[in-house]
């Protein structure tokens, strides 16, 4: 027993990865490989999000509970950048909308300028209020005009039709911008103000996305977004793919007759094309995740990272030594949020649709935090491991819950109120379950699965 604990202590990382591989293989063999791969892909995206949050929490103790909002901004940018434009809508209200936004921006810039130069607060307020009304004057007509263009299919401006990777970058930038705004206002004040403000901005971002149909069709969703990997149907028709499938299944196919072979091949082709596409995504996401982790670790070991650690370990001493704590925290908050934004963009690219109603703080903000804490707050690789485990259990908890309900049913006979209730409300158990995991880890293993070395909290 002691020996086992010792092995665990010294090989936490390797064991965690092994367990994860085993779990995914288990799902692949017993359920399906497609499912295993989609769990794996979402694990990767969650891991990127968790990494962003972990940088904020682990490097600077910043408590961001607006993850949902930053992820949604990332998702939104996929629509704005890579969706095809809707020329009719653009000509109907594009200019007016642009002008309205320009006016708003102008008034904000003006008010910031006025307040920086110690003008009377009245002028600042006046410039903002005037800007708001001027913006609204153009905005209302523009929004109506845009939304009136073929509302069942478009009713929005569409995007710029640019390549998808640009959208990811833009997702990071958009989230970074929002983070900069909040950070600028709340950092340097009480530490929970940042939490409250980030919670607030996330809700507001979603209100805007849901209600301003001209941006991204609101709750009508944008579907069929362009993707960076081939379509399944194209794969099935390309000769090289068919050859590859044939090569993989040489032995089994050779036993069949010609007629059977054609039929089996078409089934195999469709199966393989789905797996292939998922694998494309996996390698893409994995590459991004690995690149981000390497960059994060390099940054942490750089002179910049030393400063970060100095401030984290003793904020008061660091600020006494002339280190600008607030600026440092702002940088870290912006970087972390940008990573969350990128992950949000990846998610939308992966699902191919932008559905504002799917953004719920329970699913995004909270779940990501559980991942960070379980994985080992402060440890970049730990948050990846946490993301894997938590996402895995999050997805598999529904089959587990149903299995539990069935067991109750079999055990107690058919007509049983308890099992019906369990089946009906099973998914709410997940929140309670995840909340319990979070509290238990915080209390009894605050370091998580992979505790950060010599960390002071």
């Amino acid at each position: 027993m002691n020996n086992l604990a010792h092995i665990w202590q010294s090989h936490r990382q390797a064991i965690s990865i092994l367990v994860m591989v085993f779990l995914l293989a288990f799902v692949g063999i017993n359920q399906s490989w497609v499912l295993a791969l989609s769990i794996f892909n979402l694990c990767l995206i969650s891991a990127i999000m968790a990494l962003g949050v972990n940088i904020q929490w682990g490097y600077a103790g910043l408590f961001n509970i607006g993850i949902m909002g930053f992820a949604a901004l990332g998702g939104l940018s996929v629509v704005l950048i890579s969706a095809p434009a809707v020329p009719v809508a653009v000509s109907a209200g594009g200019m007016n909308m642009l002008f309205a936004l320009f006016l708003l921006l102008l008034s904000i810039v003006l008010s910031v300028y006025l307040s920086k130069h110690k003008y009377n607060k009245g002028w600042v307020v006046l410039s903002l209020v005037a800007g708001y009304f001027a913006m609204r004057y153009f905005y209302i007509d523009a929004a109506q005009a845009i939304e009136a263009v073929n509302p069942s299919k478009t009713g929005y401006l569409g995007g710029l039709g640019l390549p998808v990777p640009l959208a990811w970058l833009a997702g990071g930038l958009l989230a970074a911008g929002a983070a900069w705004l909040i950070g600028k206002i709340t950092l340097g004040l009480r530490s929970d103000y940042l939490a409250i403000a980030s919670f607030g901005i996330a809700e507001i971002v979603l209100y805007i996305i849901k209600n301003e149909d001209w941006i991204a069709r609101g709750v009508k969703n944008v579907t069929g977004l362009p993707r960076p990997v081939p379509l399944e149907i194209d794969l099935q028709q390309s000769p090289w793919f068919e050859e590859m499938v044939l090569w993989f299944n040489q032995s089994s196919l050779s036993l069949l007759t010609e007629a059977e072979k054609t039929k089996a091949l078409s089934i195999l082709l469709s199966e393989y094309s789905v797996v292939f596409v998922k694998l494309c995504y996996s390698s893409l996401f994995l590459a991004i995740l690995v690149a981000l982790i390497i960059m994060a670790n390099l940054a942490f070991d750089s002179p910049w990272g030393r400063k970060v650690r100095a401030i984290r370990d003793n904020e008061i001493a660091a600020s006494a030594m002339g280190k600008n704590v607030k600026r440092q925290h702002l940088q870290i908050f912006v970087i972390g949020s940008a990573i969350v934004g990128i992950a949000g963009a990846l998610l939308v690219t992966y699902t191919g649709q932008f559905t504002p109603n799917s953004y719920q703080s329970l699913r995004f903000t909270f779940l990501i935090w559980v991942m960070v804490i379980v994985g080992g707050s402060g440890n970049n690789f730990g948050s990846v491991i946490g993301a894997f485990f938590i996402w895995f259990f999050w997805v598999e908890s529904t089959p587990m819950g149903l299995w539990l309900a069935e067991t109750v049913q079999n055990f107690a006979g058919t007509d049983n109120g308890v099992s019906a209730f369990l089946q009906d409300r099973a998914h709410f158990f997940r929140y309670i379950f995840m909340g319990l995991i979070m509290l238990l880890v915080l209390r009894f293993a605050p370091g998580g699965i992979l505790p950060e070395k010599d960390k002071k909290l």
Partner: protein
Amino acid sequence: MPSFDNILNAFILLSNFVLLPALTYGAQLALGALAVTLVYSILRFANFSQANNMAFGTAMAILLTGFFQSQGWTISGFPTALLVIPLAIVITIICLLLTDRWVYRYYRINNAKSITVVMVSIGVMFIMGGLVQLIMGPEQQIFADGARFIWTAREFKTFSGLSEGLALKTSQLTTILLALLAVGLVFYFLQKTKVGKAMRAFSDNEDLALLSGINPDKVVFTTWLLVATLTTIAGVLFGLDKGFSPLQYHLLLLPVFAAVIVGGIGSPLGAIVGAFVISFSEMLLTYAYKKFFIYLLPTSLEPDSLLQLIGTEYKYAVSFVILIIVLLIKPTGIFKGKVL
């Protein structure tokens, strides 16, 4: 110059659609904000589970209401919920005390950083949210029974002879009376009683309070009693007024926190003033003033647009914007709360 009748009509219109609802909503927020500020000043963390605690208290009241109705124990004209509030409070008290015992106490004893406790309270928030949805389901529920109005808009019109009516809903009257009573009692308790003063002392200077022989466990216990009571009342009143749905309660967190910070975090009076600042801003900014100005302006100047400053769908955004403005201009809030 508009006639006196028109001015009166304009005022009644505003009262019916803005002032009275804002007063009601403000009172509900105030109770929630008071609870947050009490937890903040005694237990020293921002309690993110406040809104979901309110949902829990309300859920208990709804279950009890169902039971009372089935037994025929109702009060004529008024919602049954009023009858069950004391019982719902007791259940919420037990729930919060258990949460404290199992969760928060450990961090208090170990002098954990405040941000750690905030994180813990978010864990509690999700457990409570899950629990409430598990019990009640995610759908909206209306549990207000009894008469809907004390007097209707039509009754008011016939009585006053004006063309605008000012309706008074039972839920509005109940909210205002009960909130006044609750806030009055809390302030009396804090200002005049020995335990209340001990709580204030503890909030002011914990070490000195301990050196004066104040028992911290008792202070914490009393705080949770007050907090659970305020939380349940706030939740039930909000639910009577607007119906109960877990998500809507979850979203209350933003206006409640905004109220606390606007008023000055840690200041009970600030929480109440902040709540009304939030509620009135929300209502005044999202109301469409077209009809109001039709009464006041000559026909030639009659407005043709809705004259709405912000769409109703953004009412939660109002509290956020006010919160940001306060943080920019005066982070201590109106009543000089604790900033650092």
